[in-house]
């Protein structure tokens, strides 16, 4: 492995305030809940103190959103579009700052926040801005109506990108929103609040309430919320589905996954190895659609694993702000504990664990890239979402067996297939019960491309024409 000199991105581009309030009705306001600290997971340094929105604060935010809904929904789509275009532009203008802030608060490598997250965030706003005055052409009648106030709860793995996925289509369709970012990664959402002010977005159209699960529950269960959108764990998704039962609220849920990444013996091996690495080690494996189960055809298993291990030996783990870093920090102590617990269970259940030689920083939360071989379908690491840089390897002999194993999960978010045979790609893709299938690629995202799961990975789609349905009264 080549020695690389440190190449840290400067954090001078961001100006983190010591404390942040809630963003309600266009103003920053104190929360009445007990404030909490958000830390840099790579150093455990406190970044800022953040307000917790109590039930009362959430109510204020929903009322602000309700008040704003009248004018926002009545505004010509072409005018709404211009606000959203403005937001897209400001994000592009401030993308370096936002990327650094994201990496600081989340722990993800700057290479990813800079090259993946931020470009997609801007693109998502840009894409949906263009829909605002074209909704009559979307296939829902001449003048489809918005739903009202959207309560949106997002996870910590792609904080600003998930915000974009939620807010952009909601605003384009004429809804107003109250959004709760994850408690470990609130900073880019709060920076976004400032962007809304820079864009002169009318007060109350976007409201940001910070806090933990209780704040999210207060938002989701608020009687004047018409639409609930949640991205996060299947367990919380279940709770939300249960709690809104009978309320008539429209719900979209984007939940967990346990994606199979299937490699056939005729696959282009080097490309497949890159795809496997991208599939499971992108964003430290904190990806709901991560290719966490590698299904490799028995005839090439040995060869593929050797190549994969060689490649893992070249991954650089460390400072998220270093431009050469491949694997950053685990987002929180709690997540690290879960990854450790499941990995220990993998060993205890008889799978063989392997990691490249890899020194971990003293401070912060870290987990080395890890492969388990000899994994059985019954093992916890083959069934449960680890949400970390842990790959379970299983083998198969026939295409039918590959499909059966791939579908043997309650999840159905994504899957991958690697083969040079076109007919096999199409056959496998049609048999996989998953919302996104990457063939000879993996973890690709685009605002024009619908994303979302089958089965217990949730319902509804985000992105593309299909993403509009979630925010229209149709």
């Amino acid at each position, binding site marked *: 492995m080549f020695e690389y000199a440190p190449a840290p991105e400067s954090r001078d581009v961001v100006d983190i305030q010591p404390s942040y309030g809630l963003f309600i009705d266009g103003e920053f306001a104190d929360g009445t809940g007990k404030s909490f600290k958000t830390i840099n997971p790579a150093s455990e340094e406190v970044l800022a103190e953040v307000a917790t929105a109590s039930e009362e604060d959430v109510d204020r935010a929903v009322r602000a959103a309700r008040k704003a809904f009248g004018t926002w929904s009545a505004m010509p789509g072409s005018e709404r579009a211009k606000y959203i275009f403005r937001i897209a532009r400001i994000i592009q203008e401030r993308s370096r700052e936002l990327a650094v802030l994201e990496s600081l608060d989340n722990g993800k490598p700057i290479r990813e926040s800079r090259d993946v997250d931020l470009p997609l965030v801007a693109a998502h706003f840009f894409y949906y801005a263009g829909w605002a005055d074209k909704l009559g052409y979307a296939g829902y009648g001449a003048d489809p109506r918005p739903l009202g106030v959207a309560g949106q709860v997002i996870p910590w793995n792609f904080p600003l990108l998930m915000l974009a996925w939620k807010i952009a289509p909601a605003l384009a369709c004429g809804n107003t929103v109250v959004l709760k970012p994850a408690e470990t990664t609130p900073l880019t959402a709060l920076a976004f609040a400032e962007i809304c002010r820079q864009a002169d977005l009318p007060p109350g159209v976007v409201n940001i309430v910070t806090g933990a699960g209780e704040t999210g529950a207060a938002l989701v269960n608020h009687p004047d919320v018409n639409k609930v959108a949640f991205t996060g764990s299947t367990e919380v998704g279940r709770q939300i589905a249960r709690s809104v039962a009978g309320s008539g609220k429209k719900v979209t849920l984007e939940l967990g996954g346990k994606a199979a990444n299937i490699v056939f013996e005729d696959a282009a091996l080097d490309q497949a190895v890159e795809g496997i690495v991208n599939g499971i080690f992108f964003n430290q494996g904190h990806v709901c659609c991560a290719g966490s189960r590698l299904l490799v055809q028995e005839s090439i298993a040995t060869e593929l694993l050797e190549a994969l291990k060689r490649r893992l030996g070249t991954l650089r783990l460390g400072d998220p702000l270093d431009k050469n870093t491949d694997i950053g920090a685990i987002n929180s102590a709690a997540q690290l504990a879960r990854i450790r617990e499941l990995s220990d269970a993998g060993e205890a259940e008889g799978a063989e664990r392997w990691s490249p030689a890899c020194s971990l920083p003293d401070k912060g939360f870290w987990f080395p890239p890890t492969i388990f071989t000899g994994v059985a379908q019954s093992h916890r690491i083959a069934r449960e979402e680890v949400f970390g840089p842990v790959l379970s390897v299983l083998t198969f002999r026939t295409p039918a067996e590959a499909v059966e194993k791939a579908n043997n999960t309650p999840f159905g978010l994504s899957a991958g297939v690697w083969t040079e045979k076109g007919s096999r790609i199409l056959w496998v893709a049609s048999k996989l019960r998953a919302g996104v299938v990457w063939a000879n690629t993996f973890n690709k995202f685009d605002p*024009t491309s619908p994303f979302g799961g089958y*089965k217990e990975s949730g319902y509804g789609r985000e992105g593309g024409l299909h993403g509009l349905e979630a925010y229209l009264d149709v």
Partner: protein
Amino acid sequence: MSKTERPSRARASAELAAEGPGERAQSRDSVRLAVRKTYKLYIGGAFPRSESGRSYVVTSSKGDFLANASKASRKDARDAVTAARKAFGGWSGATPYNRGQILYRVAEMLESRRAQFVAELSESGTKKAGEVVDAAVDRLVWYAGWADKIAAVTGSTNPVAGPYFNISSPEPTGVVAVVAPDEPLLGLISVIAPVIVTGNTCVVIASERAPLPSITLAEVLATSDLPAGVVNILTGSVKEIAPWLAAHMDVNALDLTGVGDENLAITCEEAAAENLKRVFRPTGADWSADPGTRRLTAFLETKTVWHPTGA
């Protein structure tokens, strides 16, 4: 029971409806005692009785005894789900053209039994039964035509910013549990057809008040080349069976159209959360109106496939 058995009770009733005054018809019936039909369940293409051995009395709108309908149990519901799951692979894998042909065949079979359905519906209190049957046939024809068109309407090719081919297409959700409305034929057809035409399979709880036409419809389905298990029909207590189906972990979606009781609907929705079933609960239903595509899309998933482009 033979699948083509003719329901003599209904035939007698057809005459009754045609000839008017009941007494005359009854007195003529007494010359030859009618052979009545046993109304059973429809599971996996067969007509079993409820494994529980239970039945309940179904009466006409005037309160006269019509038949003892099977009262399905939890076990029957589970058997029906098993049958629906077993049928899903083949049915969802059939070509849309083939599914459309079969639905059209169902319409043909229904049309050929028009008189029988008019009689049964009249007995159950349906007004203008002839028009209702006509509308049901027409609705089947309408949905049959959707089989090979819905993907063109709901699918898309997505112009992603990169060297990738990207396409989204609809796929059936899986096994759908349907609580049919209390509208024994047109309502029943209107909930079943959109579910199965796209490749789903279903377990249907028929109208509790007027379940008999649903079993007669099962005879139509059984003679229409519809593979066994694609549609399974249970009769009995909605309140008793629906929560089991709502909680069943191998059911993918739930259509609560026929659940009028708010508490029961909430119970079902809560139970459905356990495996994130898609729940469809429309408000208000005018079965004579243009159905639109809402019932089709409610039980479709969108699958998006990416592939790199390059020489």
